[in-house]
C-alpha cells in the first residue's frame, strides 16, 4: 500500500504565502491600533494610562465602576444619556422602517402616480452630504420649536435615513414576482392585506438590514446630536463624549471607558446581523 506522500510547499507557494502575511499583518495592526488603544485606556488606572504603556502594569475594571456608578462630574448623567441614545436609535429605526416600507410598497408594487419622481427626490437627498444639511436643519428645528427635544434628533435622523432605506427597499421589492400580487388580488385581497400578509413577510431580510442601518446611523450620529440637543440630561452619549474635551484636564481614561461601552452595542449589532447587512447594504450601495 502506498502512503500519500507528505508534500512540502514549493518555494513559489511559500513565497506567495509569505507575501500574503506581509500584507495581512500590517492590515491587522492598522485596523486594531485605535481600538486597542481605547481598550488599554479603559482597563488602565490613571497613572498607567498617561505613561504610554502598551499594556497596563495593573489592569483594573475600576474605570467601568466609576462610569456605572456615575462617580465623576462628566459622568453624572451617564445612564440617562445611554437611555436617550437607546430611545432615539430605536425610534429612528421604527419610524424609518414604517415610512420607507410604506413608500417603497407604494412606488414599487402599487405604482403610485409620481412614484418615480418621489424616488428621485429621495435619491437626491441621499446624495447631499448630511453635514451640509445640518446648518439649515438646525434653524428649521428652531423655527418648529423642536430644538433641545428628542424629536428634533429623531426627525432629522429619519430624514437622513429614509432616502437610502426607500431606495434599497424599492430595489428589493422590484425583484418580487408580480404574479404574487396578481394572485392575491384574484383571491380578493385588498392592498393593505397584500402589504401585511405578502409583502412584509417576503421582504423580511431587507427590512432587518434597513432597520439595523437606521438604528446604527442614529446611535452613531454625532454632528446632528450635538447641534440639536444641549441640556446635559437630553444629550446622547456621543455628545457627552465630545463634552469631555471641554476641560483641560479631561479624565481620558474615563472618556475611553465610556467610549468603549458606547461602541460595544453597534459592533455587536453589526456582527449579529452581518449576514443581512453585507447582502442587503452592499448590494444596494453601489449598483455597477
Amino acid at each position, binding site marked *: 500500500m502506498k502512503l500519500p506522500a507528505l508534500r512540502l510547499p514549493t518555494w513559489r507557494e511559500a513565497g506567495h504565502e509569505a507575501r500574503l502575511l506581509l500584507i495581512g499583518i500590517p492590515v491587522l495592526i492598522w485596523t486594531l491600533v485605535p481600538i486597542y488603544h481605547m481598550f488599554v485606556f479603559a482597563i488602565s488606572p490613571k497613572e498607567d494610562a498617561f505613561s504610554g504603556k502598551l499594556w497596563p502594569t495593573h489592569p483594573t475594571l475600576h474605570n467601568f465602576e466609576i462610569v456605572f456608578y456615575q462617580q465623576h462630574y462628566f459622568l453624572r448623567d451617564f445612564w440617562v444619556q445611554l437611555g436617550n441614545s437607546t430611545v432615539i436609535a430605536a425610534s429612528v429605526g421604527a419610524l424609518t422602517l414604517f*415610512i420607507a416600507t410604506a413608500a417603497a410598497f407604494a412606488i414599487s408594487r402599487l405604482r403610485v402616480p409620481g412614484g418615480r419622481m418621489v424616488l428621485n427626490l429621495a435619491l437626491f437627498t441621499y446624495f447631499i452630504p448630511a453635514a451640509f444639511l445640518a*446648518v*439649515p436643519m438646525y434653524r428649521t428645528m428652531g423655527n418648529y420649536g423642536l430644538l433641545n427635544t428628542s424629536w428634533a434628533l429623531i426627525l432629522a435622523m429619519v430624514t437622513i435615513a429614509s432616502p437610502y432605506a426607500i431606495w434599497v427597499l424599492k430595489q428589493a421589492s422590484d425583484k418580487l414576482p408580480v404574479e404574487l400580487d396578481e394572485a392575491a388580488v384574484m383571491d380578493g385581497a385588498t392592498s393593505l392585506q397584500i*402589504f401585511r400578509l405578502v409583502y412584509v413577510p417576503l421582504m423580511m431580510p431587507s427590512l432587518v438590514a434597513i432597520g439595523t442601518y437606521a438604528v446604527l446611523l442614529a446611535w452613531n450620529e454625532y*454632528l446632528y446630536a450635538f447641534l440639536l440637543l444641549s441640556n446635559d440630561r437630553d444629550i446622547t452619549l456621543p455628545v457627552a463624549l465630545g463634552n469631555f474635551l471641554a476641560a483641560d484636564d479631561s479624565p481620558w481614561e474615563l472618556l475611553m471607558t465610556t467610549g468603549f461601552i458606547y461602541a460595544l452595542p453597534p459592533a455587536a449589532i453589526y456582527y449579529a446581523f452581518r449576514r443581512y447587512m453585507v447582502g442587503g447594504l*452592499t448590494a444596494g450601495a453601489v*449598483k*455597477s
Partner: protein
Amino acid sequence: MAITLAAPDSAVPGAPLPARLSTPQVWGIVMIVPYLLVFLAFVVYPVGYGFWLARQPSNYVALFHDPIFARAAVNTLIFLVVGINLKMLIALFLSGFFVQSRSWIKWLSVIFILPWAVPSIPTILSVRFMLNPEWGMVNQLIFKFTGDDGPNWLNDPTVALSMAIGVHIWKSLPFWTLILMTGRLAISQDLFEAAEVDGASWWQKFRYITWPSMLPLYLTCTLLSMIWTLGDFNSVYLLTGGGPADLTHVLSTLGIRYLRLDQLNLAMASIVCAMPLVLPLVYFMMKRLSR
C-alpha cells in the same frame, strides 16, 4: 385628508380624483404621504430657507475676504484628492488580498470591518490622544526607541490635516474594500483560467482582466466616496477641531464653525459655495443609479 394633500402630485388636476384613481393607487398615495411630509418639512423647507438666508451677495464678499474660508477650500481639495485616491487605491489592492481563499484571511476580514462597525467618536478621540505630544502612545514609543521627542503632531497644520485624512481612511476603508471585493468576485473565473493557460503574468491578468471589469464600479465608488468625503465632519472636527489656529478646517466643519459663532448667513454661504462641486456629482450619481 391624505388624498387631498397629495392631489397636486397626480397627473389629472381638477378631475374628481378618487373617481379616476383605482383603489390600490389611492392606497399608494396614502402610503407615500408620510415620506412626502418628512421631505417637505425637513428637506424642502430647510434648503429653501437656507438659500434664502444666503441670498445676499454681501455674504459672499465677506466669505471671500475671510482667510479661513480660502484655507478651508484648499484643505477640502487636498482632503478630497489625496484622501480619496489613496483610499480607493488601497481598497482596490486589499480587495484582491481579501478574495484569497485562506481561513486566516476570512478571519482577518471579520476583524478588518471593525472600524466601519464601531462609532467614530470614541475611535477618533482615541487617535487624538495617541498623538498627544506629551502623554500619547506614539511619542512615548518614539522617545523610548530614539531618545528624541516626537513631533507635536496636531500642532502643525500639514501634519494635522494628514492625520485627519488618515483617520478618514481608517474609518471608511473597510466599506470600500468590501464593495470592491463584490466587484472582483463577480468577474468570471474562466477568464483567469484562460489567461493562466496562455501564461499570463500577475500584472497582465490585472491589467487586461481585473481592471477593465472593475473600472465602472471603481469610478462609481470614487464619485460616491467624493460626495461622502465632502460631508465628512467627524474626522476633522474630532481630531483637530479645525485647529491649530483654524488652519485645518474643511468646508463641512467651516459651516458649523460659523454656525457656532452665530454667523448663520456665512454658514449657509459657505455651503452654497460647495454646491458647484456637489451638484454635478449628485447629478452623475443619480444618472448612474436610476438607469
